[in-house]
């Protein structure tokens, strides 16, 4: 009888374990999106003003609804609020069209300055879901919006949304 034993099953098992450990270690890397919020100590008086042609406000409602208006709103003069969705033809198209429009205007008006694009204000309702927030931040990256901020919603804006069916 030969003293040699067949080591093939042992090799099979060893490489199976190697493969298992390789895959489990690489898959545990978390996926993240970076968010930068302004410091609270910032002097609000010196914050640059947003021109009304370059501002877009997006409000996140309940059940994944999305509302938006262009320009700047005041309590007594609300611009028309439009209703859209997270479908690719919804908010993504509006963002990329507005981005192109503002960049073209900035290039025409100030040819020697780099075009920064529009300023987008994101205002989630307190009752909106976290997934809406992640979805809209995702859209900012996809449509390559350079300037966007997470802002608390004003009462008159929340009231205006609740009127829209």
């Amino acid at each position: 009888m030969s003293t040699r034993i067949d080591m093939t099953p042992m090799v099979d098992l060893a490489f199976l374990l190697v493969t298992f450990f390789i895959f489990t270690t690489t898959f545990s890397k978390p996926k993240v999106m970076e968010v930068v919020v302004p410091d609270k100590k910032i002097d609000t008086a010196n914050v640059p003003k947003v021109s009304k042609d370059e501002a877009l406000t997006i409000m996140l409602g309940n059940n994944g609804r999305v509302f938006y208006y262009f320009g700047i709103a005041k309590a007594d003069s609300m611009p028309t609020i439009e209703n859209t969705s997270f479908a690719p033809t919804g908010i993504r198209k509006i963002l990329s069209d507005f981005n192109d429009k503002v960049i073209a205007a900035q290039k025409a008006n100030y040819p020697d300055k780099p075009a920064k694009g529009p300023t987008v204000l994101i205002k989630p309702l307190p009752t909106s879901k976290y997934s809406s927030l992640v979805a809209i931040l995702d859209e900012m990256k996809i449509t390559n919006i350079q300037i966007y901020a997470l802002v608390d919603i004003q009462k008159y804006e929340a009231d205006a949304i609740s009127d829209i069916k």
Partner: protein
Amino acid sequence: MPKVKIPRKSVAIDMTPMVDMAFLLVTFFILTATAKPDEPLTVVKPASETAKSIEPNSRIEISVSDDGRVFFDMTNKNNRAILIKQMAATYKISLTSDEALSFSLLGSFGEPMDSIKAFLDRTPPERKLIPEPGIPCDSLNNQLADWLDYARHISGSNTPVTLRADQNANYSVVNKVINTFKDKNATRFLLVTDPAGKAPVAKK
């Protein structure tokens, strides 16, 4: 003519060096892998298309459950003993060395400071039976701010702060956590998401 004798060779090759190498790799991966601690809450992460992966190094992680409870975790186990000592001193709680040790072995937790001593006295299976109420982060009683402050002080302000919230968590709770980050000067943080199908990113 004499017959040419071809030496008969065995078809079996010696696999011992290959087995040695394979088990060396297995040992390497077992030793480098870190065991995942028991998570008290399951978080369904929202999907995103533009997320990047980071190295799973030491980080401070705040989790929010779908019903709005806030959990805290500092993944560097070595620093947790200092963290609980400082927190206990701030909230005037005396903990035994056994309780401090069981804190070091925890994953993320959601216990307010007034019940953390009783929580640490329970065995891990007992802890699972009683749902953790979450760490208070209201403006009147913001214990999360203290946890964050001490954790960043101990592990350095460069330690990444990650927010792992459930997709169905209300924005009001997430906003409270983000405001706590702002208060404690953690203005750069990371949202943990699940990768979805890749969308084309617009060209500049």
